[in-house]
């Protein structure tokens, strides 16, 4: 067991290093001079060269990469003398546009996105799995037909349509939820504001994913119901309810967890549309804004962060699988 976990963690670290190196190289190959971009409107060559040295863009690429890596663990300081400033570990660089350390920008945006993804995940898992289960249980009857209409709508309506529709009807016309000008409030500070802030974005994301999970669960349940071991359970005299909720769901659980983990990781990297519609100051919007502003340190950091989340989620899923499926025990 320990061997397996150790090996997987080692692989995860190697993958992360490779991904960060590739992303770093790609960004350095872009036809922009990062030193020039870090300078305002009234720019002189002198300021640009000064910034180049201050931000370390004068050094060879591999040194820049090593500095970037060491900054994550040790923090990093820029410049000398009275103009010196530093970003404490974990430092992902410095954004001149914002005049702030990238890590502090990430620290503000990450909780918003994590809460957005987590809330949506909980809603779509509950809704999608139960709808899929009901659809499979009543295959070909009206609950199945109804759920397939939901699946069709959920998968074909883009989030900018459902999101805007919710915003127009629920917030503006019916005034059920205040417009999210209130800003992000952590759950422990004010639960009511927290839920008001997130409920519509959650539902927007959850509708799309719940539709996929309904379809997936229905198919997986129907497939499992045809398995020999389900026939064995029935032959034992097990109640149909137990056959469905225990024997079948136990087998369907593992692939759903896998799917959920990957979808969750995907959302951390890019719930861009939903965050933009609802004006959520999360990672997606941060990435979008810094892309438009050519704020390369931020784009670099969010890209590597998104990759890291996917790799870490994969690691977690693999370890969960060893717990969920006795055949994978090592």
């Amino acid at each position, binding site marked *: 067991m320990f061997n397996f976990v150790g090996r997987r963690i080692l692989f995860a670290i190697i993958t992360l290093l490779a991904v960060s190196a590739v992303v770093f190289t790609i960004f350095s190959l872009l036809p922009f001079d990062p030193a020039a971009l870090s300078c305002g409107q009234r720019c002189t060559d002198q300021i640009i060269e000064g910034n180049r040295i201050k931000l370390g863009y004068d050094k060879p690429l591999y040194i820049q990469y090593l500095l970037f890596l060491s900054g994550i663990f040790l923090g990093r300081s820029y410049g000398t003398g009275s103009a010196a400033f530093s970003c404490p570990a974990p430092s992902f660089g410095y954004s001149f546009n914002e005049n702030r350390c990238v890590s502090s920008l990430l620290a503000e945006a990450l909780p918003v996105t994590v809460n957005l993804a987590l809330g949506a995940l909980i809603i779509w898992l509950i809704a999608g799995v139960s709808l899929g289960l009901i659809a499979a249980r009543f295959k070909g009857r009206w609950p199945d037909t109804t759920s397939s209409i939901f699946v069709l709508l959920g998968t074909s309506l883009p989030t900018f349509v459902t999101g805007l529709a919710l915003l127009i009807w629920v917030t503006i016309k019916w005034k059920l939820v205040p417009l999210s000008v209130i800003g992000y409030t952590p759950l422990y500070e004010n639960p009511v504001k927290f839920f008001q802030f997130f409920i519509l974005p959650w539902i927007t994301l959850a509708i799309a994913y719940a539709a996929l999970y309904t379809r997936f669960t229905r198919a997986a349940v129907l497939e499992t119901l045809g398995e020999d071991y389900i026939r064995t359970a029935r032959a*034992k005299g097990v109640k149909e309810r137990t056959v469905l909720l225990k024997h079948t769901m136990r087998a369907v659980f593992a692939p759903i967890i896998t799917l959920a983990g990957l979808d969750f990781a995907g959302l951390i990297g890019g719930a861009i549309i939903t965050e933009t519609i609802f004006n959520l100051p999360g990672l997606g919007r941060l990435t979008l804004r810094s892309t438009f502003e050519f704020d390369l340190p931020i784009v670099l950091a969010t890209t590597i962060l998104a990759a890291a989340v996917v790799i870490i989620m994969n690691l977690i899923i693999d370890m969960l699988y060893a717990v969920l499926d006795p055949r994978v025990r090592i």
Partner: protein
Amino acid sequence: MAHILAINDLHVTFPTDDGLVRAVDGVSLSLNEGQTLAIVGESGSGKTVTGLSIMGLHKRGATQISGSILIKDGDREIDIVSSSEEEIRMLRGGTVAMIFQDPMSSLHPYYRIGNQLAEAFLVHNPGKKKQARARAIEMLDLVGISEPAVRADEYPHQFSGGMRQRVMIAMALMNSPRVLIADEPTTALDVTVQAQILILLKSLQKEFHMGILLITHDLGVVAQVADDVSVMYGGKIVETGTADGVFYQPKAPYTLGLLKSVPRISTHGSDRLKAIAGQPPSLINLPTGCAFAPRCEYSSHAPADACATLRPQLLGQSPSHLSRCHVDESTRDSIFAKELKQVRP
């Protein structure tokens, strides 16, 4: 001896897009305590559907069923065909148990063996968890699994195929059933393991006094364990009698074909296996006459046109050995005896 299972004129049909599939077409049979009755037939002859109907597991989709399946449960007699799902469920795994063809896929991969066994007990004895566990270990021991208390905490993938079939048998016997339906219990196993499983079934039958309905296409298995044999073809029983009677004096042309097609070690290497010509009939469009007529070598001995137009009845000079054939029984006896002599010198 009293019947513990009596099937009378059972019909099971499935509507499909291509038409009505008559999987079981007027089957009658009975099983006594301690008796082993083998149902023999090729794939699609209706033998498995017959077995599943006895468990009440046929009720999927639009399946239609008629006739009666009477099972003795204590002093009561329950008809599976007309009983409610809940009544049948109480019989399942209790009075009637079933073991299946493929032990590799018949156990739930995510649950411990001991818990899967205990569940069979708990369904019929709610709340008695300690007893269920003790019974599970006892049954594992009985079917010849060493260190049953340790093995009970393992998962199916840690067992070999033969061991899993032993587990399946143990699971079926958790509540001491009176009727055990064994649907090709040895098909997925290699020959030495097959023999072990059959010997085990026989010894357990003595201990539990149960009637075994053995569904198989393997005549070798039948010869080893069956007291009586019913041969099925096209959803019907075409011959029924004692195992010895059917083996040494087959009366249905189909049975003779099956016996002739058994490979023998004494056969010369160059001789071809004597297969029955043609294909088994589709259960959607059965021939109007005898279902076996298109493949039968002996229809010329029957009265003109009888084979093609009339369904033969299940008849016989001896009430304990019946068969369906239009050819006169004594004519058949003499022809079949000669033919058997050729393959069994």
